[in-house]
């Protein structure tokens, strides 16, 4: 039986993703196009929010992925610290810029929606604030990766930063709740059916969330492969220079 750790071998990882990546990419495009076209053109306007409600198809999935990308980085960092698989460290590194872009998309779409609905682009609401703090954590993490030359040292330091940062990001999340009252509505999605948005919006939303998840997966796989190859090229050129 092959275990999950087989893919910790970079060669095996590249071989497998060679086959998987096209499927994931195509599926991501299909889901995104279906979800967004369905959401934008074939759902009714909301009776209070008008057509601005449709930004939900970008805002909610990107916000979801922004948090999940950090979680994925946390898991990958833990794997690196415990089992020291290089692919894992590279995957964490590959996920960071994607996660950062997702947080920025969520913040930008939120601001665009907030202007007509709340009458302001920005409010110091707990959710908005904790997202801004998450953005800062992403910046710090990426900056630390790029500041250190030695790959292993960088992987070690950033993975510890990711662990400590996760604790503090969580603390900040609850601290800002304490600090200011919220303007943002509750969760749009939850396993509890009562709290969900109405069904007309719900199904296309699910499709576009699937699209964002697949897009994230495809980008992370692609970036991890690039990192592996870049490192291989670096090693090869060093070896050539020594001969």
């Amino acid at each position: 039986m092959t275990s999950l750790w087989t893919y910790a071998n970079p060669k095996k990882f590249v071989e497998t993703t060679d086959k998987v990546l096209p499927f994931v990419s195509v599926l991501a495009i299909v889901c995104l196009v279906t979800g967004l076209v369905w959401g934008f053109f074939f759902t009714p306007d909301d009776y209070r929010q008008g057509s601005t409600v449709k930004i939900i198809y970008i805002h909610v999935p990107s916000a979801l992925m922004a948090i999940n990308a950090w979680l994925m980085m946390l898991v990958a960092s833990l794997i690196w610290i415990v089992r020291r698989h290089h692919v894992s460290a590279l995957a964490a590194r590959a996920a960071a810029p994607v996660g950062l872009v997702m947080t920025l998309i969520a913040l930008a779409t939120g601001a665009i929606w907030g202007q007509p609905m709340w009458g302001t682009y920005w409010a110091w609401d707990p959710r908005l604030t904790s997202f801004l703090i998450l953005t800062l954590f992403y910046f710090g993490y990426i900056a630390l990766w790029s500041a250190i030359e030695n790959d292993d040292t960088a992987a070690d330091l950033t993975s510890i930063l990711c662990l400590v940062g996760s604790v503090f990001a969580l603390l900040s999340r609850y601290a800002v709740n304490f600090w200011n009252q919220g303007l943002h509505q509750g969760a749009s999605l939850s396993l509890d059916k009562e709290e969900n948005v109405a069904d007309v919006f719900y199904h296309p939303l699910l499709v576009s969330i699937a699209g964002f998840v697949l897009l994230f997966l495809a980008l992370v796989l692609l970036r991890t492969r690039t990192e592996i190859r870049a490192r291989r090229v670096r090693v090869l050129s060093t070896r050539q220079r020594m001969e």
Partner: protein
Amino acid sequence: MIALLLRDLRLAIRAGGGFGLGLAFFLIVVVLVPFAVGPEAGLLSSIAPGILWLGALLACLLSLDRIFALDWEDGSLDLLAVSPLPMEAVVSVKALAHWLTTGVPLVLATPLIAVLLNLPGEGFRSLILSLALGTPALSVIGTFGAALTVGIKRGGLLLSLLVLPLYVPTLIFGAEVARRGLSGQDTSTPLLLLAGITCGAIALLPFASAAVLRVNLR
């Protein structure tokens, strides 16, 4: 450990150690505020707790890169690493020395500087209490940041980028205590949360700092 603490304190106090620079910076930040927002007494006294907390936080940040940088350059950090003292103890002592040389003077100077911002009499107690409880957390978190960036040349800017987001919870609760004290509300909840953050940081972060320092010394 005590020898290391005394050594660090002595180094900090002697000329060129940067002792007092943090205080001077704190004073200047506070003096600049009225120029920026106007000299109106009511406005100044209402923003005073926040400004004083922010000033103390920035003054703390300013002296962070000194914690390890000098020892790293002259090699005494390597000696400390091979000494029988565990790395966790070294970073704890370093954080303590940082707190004694920047945190404590800041807390002691706050009552004098607060007068410049027209802080009303009832705000003093909770402001000083919150700073006294919060600055140890600032030092310990800052030591972690300093340990992360010790091997990087010109890491000062990166250090602030890494440390400032980590300061958010401490700042929120600390400034909340000071603000509530000023308006006469009950301060016990944020005070307890602030104390919790400080205790948690002191208990757990030295392990992270020591791990990071070991990686950097490898």
